[in-house]
């Protein structure tokens, strides 16, 4: 089950904690993976870890031309593209009343507009081959909101609406489009929390622990698999039960 042997996948933000976990899981399931990110050294380290079935595709997602070039580059290097994981994301948190236009714009550009452009490019060849899996990494915040993250929540909610619209358009071509929405995941950001903050968060999580990157990656691997072919336009929440929606 969920074997990805022979599949070709592109993962954006692969140098981040979550993106790295997703790339590792897809690779472990047998896929050839194009890893994308802005930090060349980190990409090379990850590629060295994989050894084979990996290509590097650096990209600055806030740059339009760089985004437009990414899918064609990945397709060329991999010899096609079956799976697109729009994982890359940034935060520019601030109280709404203090949220600057540029912080709104940059978060929307990277977290939503880049996902739109990459999906638009990927779906073109997926339509030809009558097969495709597009997965966007959303957030529980896109559904629940979060103080200080008006821009981030808007972008993550936007991914859900966008994915549903695209899912409806391309379902007849055997292409599925879904969102995986993580809750609180172990990361440099959550590791910086003090014990009291951590306790506060955990009291909201029935599972009693923060999520691991691998928890999210497993959900992505499922949606990226052939077996998930009848699941489309959905948001799969991976949050230890903190929000049951």
């Amino acid at each position: 089950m969920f074997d990805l042997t022979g599949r070709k996948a592109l993962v954006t933000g692969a140098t981040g904690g979550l993106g790295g976990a997703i790339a590792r899981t897809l690779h472990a399931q047998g896929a050839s993976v194009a890893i994308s990110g802005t930090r060349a050294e980190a990409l090379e380290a990850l590629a060295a870890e994989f050894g084979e079935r990996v290509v590097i595709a650096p990209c600055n997602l806030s740059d339009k031309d760089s985004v437009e070039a990414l899918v064609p580059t990945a397709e060329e290097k991999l010899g096609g593209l079956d799976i697109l994981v729009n994982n890359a994301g940034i935060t520019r948190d601030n109280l709404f009343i203090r949220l600057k236009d540029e912080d709104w714009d940059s978060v929307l550009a990277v977290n939503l507009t880049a996902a739109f452009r990459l999906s638009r490019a990927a779906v073109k060849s997926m339509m030809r081959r009558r097969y495709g899996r597009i997965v966007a990494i959303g957030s529980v915040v896109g559904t629940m909101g979060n103080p200080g993250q008006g821009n981030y929540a808007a972008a993550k909610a936007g991914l859900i609406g966008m994915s549903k619209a695209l899912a409806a358009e391309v379902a007849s071509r055997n292409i599925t489009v879904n969102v995986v929405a993580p809750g609180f995941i172990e990361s440099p950001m959550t590791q910086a929390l003090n014990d009291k903050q951590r306790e506060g968060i955990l009291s909201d999580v029935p599972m009693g622990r923060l999520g691991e990157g691998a928890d999210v990656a497993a959900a992505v691997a499922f949606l990226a698999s052939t077996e998930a072919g009848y699941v489309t336009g959905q948001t799969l929440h991976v949050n230890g039960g903190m929000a049951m929606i």
Partner: protein
Amino acid sequence: MSDVAERVKKIVVEHLGVEADKVVDGANFIEDLGADSLDTVELVMAFEEEFGVEIPDDAAETIVTVGDAVKFLSSKSA
């Protein structure tokens, strides 16, 4: 029948799975040949590939019948 018309009709038959005798110049992709809007986009992509030309969006919108496609592609590949 010109070479262009033949190639266009072959693509339409293959893509839409319709019988060749229905693919006449006056046949409207959507109304007569059962295409949906995504099919028409795919047809344009297939024409681009077959003829090695780029069909801009505003031109693609004017291609609604088999004859429209033949006319446009004949002018491009002449």
